[in-house]
């Protein structure tokens, strides 16, 4: 019933022209990584102004990741992954949802740190940043594979899938 309310699927198997998830994730990837860079520079140069820059970038990233997940779920649902692509798509989904919780928790932690001591960051937070970098980079790697190796939502893969050639 719901399908009848959406425009027909195009040659990317989408009800709109191009994938939106990779666009929304600009604001998660760039903001988280830049926040971590600013924390690092701020830590070594003792420039507390950069801590403000990283805090606001983390707020921006946390809002964005939920929008990224909404479009990610829609597009994963329409991806019709072939067998070779399925496990990476599942892992990307699992880490994506987890990352929303992690980011929200880290930004909440940062909110409290900013209220209590805006001019310094504890070592534990810097360690969390290191861990966050690893998770984000791995998540980017998985998303990259879905597009650039498996070609989900690309014309050639959608066409071959519809013709039943990807068994």
């Amino acid at each position, binding site marked *: 019933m719901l399908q009848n309310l959406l425009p027909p699927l195009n*040659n*990317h198997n989408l009800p709109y*022209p*191009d*994938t939106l998830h*990779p*666009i929304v*994730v*600009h*604001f998660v*990837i*760039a*903001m988280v*990584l*830049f926040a971590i*860079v*600013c924390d690092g520079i701020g830590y070594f140069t003792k420039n507390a*102004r*950069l801590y*403000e*820059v990283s805090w*606001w*970038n983390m707020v*921006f990233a946390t809002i964005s990741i939920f929008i990224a997940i909404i479009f990610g779920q829609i597009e994963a649902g329409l991806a019709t992954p*072939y*067998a*070779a*692509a399925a496990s990476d798509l599942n892992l990307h989904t699992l880490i994506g949802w987890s990352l929303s919780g992690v980011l929200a928790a880290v930004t909440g932690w940062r*909110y409290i740190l*900013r*209220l209590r001591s805006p001019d310094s960051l504890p070592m534990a937070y810097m360690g969390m940043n290191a861990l966050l970098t690893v998770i984000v980079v791995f998540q*980017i*790697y998985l998303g*990259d*594979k879905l*597009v*650039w*190796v*498996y*070609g989900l*939502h*690309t*014309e*050639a*893969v959608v066409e*071959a899938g519809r013709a039943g*050639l*990807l*068994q």
Partner: protein
Amino acid sequence: MIATDILTPLLGLGANGLPYGLPIHPNLVHLTLGLFIAAIAFDIVAALYPLEKPIFKFLAIPVTSSNFYDVGWFNMVAAAVITFFTVAAGFYEILLAEPPMDMTSPWGLGAMDTMIWHGVGGVLLLGLIVAMTIWRGFQRYVWREDRARQVQWSYLLAGLGIFVLMFAHGTLGAHLAADFGVHITADRLIRAGLNPNGQLNLLIKTGLIEMGGLL
């Protein structure tokens, strides 16, 4: 694309037409676009701060507008720096592109036209981002150092104009990937008559780099 005949034996290109497994340019694009758009967005939030004051008070988030201007400035500087690498990686990967020549994009452009416009647009956007950064720097440190509103309305308007350009430019890039399948392993396998579902696991396990000969 002309370069591939010469470069393939030298670089050992993989099934995606690159000497490495995943393209670099689209990853740097995340940083360029994210940083630039956030920079303008935070400057807009800063310029409209008097209107938002009650909202931040309600949320119990202590704010000064100079914080937002700091984000607008440092994000813009970072966007300018990273975009040199984004454009450089883009040109390298466009040189190694082998798109199908017998089809057109949803905008009615062939692969060659799409690549040329995406290349020209990339250089143009790099110039604009660097110019915006210099403009922003003058506003921050010289012209408006002691003003409450650190940015000119014309700067914010120019930023919004560049968003429109970025949207068109990004769509051309999306066409190169999702329609022409440039540097997408599965698309290239399909066009070579191979089934990616059968081939990919094998390719990944044996290393994509080795598979240039397959195509």
